[in-house]
């Protein structure tokens, strides 16, 4: 139930490559842009030191920024998401103690919990990001609609990601 540091580094690279060369290039119905890279933040271990969590989020966001010419936007949104993550875990999960090194996934948590946990964080991230990008409330409903639709698409990608990481186990 643990992942080595090396596999997290590999995951970081894969997530960035998928985001930059696949998802940023396709264009679904004009204004939906999924941001699958947040999957990396979602799957970090439960007991990761909080400051490392924030710094990793900042580095990940900035990497995406450099590739997509959006200086600082993704960094800011991803740091916000990382900041909210411990709070969301505490309020939504019934379990309070986690084995060291275990991470959110379908193989050790309830599927319904994984769905709630990832959807809340993805929605926060996307809403913040899209409003930061527009930088005004003049197109409020268009922006809101864009962030909700993109969140849904990202959510589908993230669930596929979780499914590849580990399948749910049958309870005995």
């Amino acid at each position, binding site marked *: 139930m643990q992942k080595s540091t090396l596999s997290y580094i590999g995951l970081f690279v894969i997530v960035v490559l998928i985001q930059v*060369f696949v998802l*940023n*290039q396709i*264009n*679904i119905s*004009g*204004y*939906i*842009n999924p941001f699958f890279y947040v999957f990396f933040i979602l799957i970090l271990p439960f007991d990761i030191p*909080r*400051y490392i969590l*924030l*710094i990793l*989020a*900042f580095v990940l*966001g*900035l990497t995406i*920024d*450099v*590739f*997509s*010419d*959006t*200086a*600082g*936007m993704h*960094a*800011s949104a991803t*740091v*916000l998401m*990382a*900041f909210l993550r*411990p709070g969301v875990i505490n309020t939504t999960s019934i379990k309070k103690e986690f084995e060291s090194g275990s991470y959110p996934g379908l193989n050790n948590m309830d599927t319904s919990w994984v769905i709630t946990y990832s959807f809340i964080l993805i929605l926060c991230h996307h809403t913040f990001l899209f409003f*930061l*990008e*527009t*930088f005004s409330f003049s*197109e409020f409903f*268009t922006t809101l609609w*864009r962030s909700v639709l993109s969140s849904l698409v990202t959510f589908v990608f993230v669930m596929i990601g979780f499914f590849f990481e580990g399948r749910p186990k049958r309870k005995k």
Partner: protein
Amino acid sequence: MRNLINFIVKYHFFFIFLALQVVAFIILIQNSYYHRSFWMNSSNYITGSLYTRYTNIGEYFQLKNINEQLSRENHNLIKQIPYSFLKTDQQIFTHRDTLYRRQYTYINARVINNSVNRRNNYLTLNKGRSHGIKPDMGVITSQGVIGIVKDVSANFSSALSLLHADTRISAKIMKNDHLGTILWDAPDYRTVIMEHIPPHVDVKLGDTIITSGHSKIFPEGIHIGTVSNYEIRRGESFITLKVELFEDFNNLTYVHVVKNLYRQEQEELEEQAETEPMFW
């Protein structure tokens, strides 16, 4: 002092969060108001060369379209060659033409990164400072205006797309030369709007919109699109036109960067006129 340190250590999560947000916002604000620093965008060496490789592969799938576009352009050029005109005048004479001097030259470049689905879209081109590209040059294709170069590195340049909240282009209606401003209202990448047309102007659906040549960036008469709708918005006294673009921004491959040879002269003159005190 010790209490303060304890306090910071205790709430270090929140303070680091705050610090990182501040850093992110500083980067964001710096980049939207000043020229972007050399490493923070897709015109830097690493991202530029990665995107070039990616485009090299993707380009094969575009070859059919590019060829069609090229043959269309050739067709238009052949039509303009003198031997395709029938001479109706029997007196033939030649003279050295001093009436025309070249004002614009064009640098051919390839789009290696492009987007249409964000509120602010950018393009990355595979030519840079060493090919003669400078900031504030225009980017066009045979079918229309594409954008304006913003940052340049040695071998790459990044340009504001026409599909960007900060892009404003001076344009006019071809048939009666009335001026307006072109800008993009998200999210549809196939249309832009043209503002500030006085209400007495005669506009019809299907009228062609071209660049006005009043900026130092684009030559006069580059096609932009056709009028697809018009309205007087509430509380405004001007007509707003909806303009359907000729160019499909989702499908850009080759572009021309416009170099204005008289730009410096014009700028110096205008600057002089603005700064010199005048006594009437």
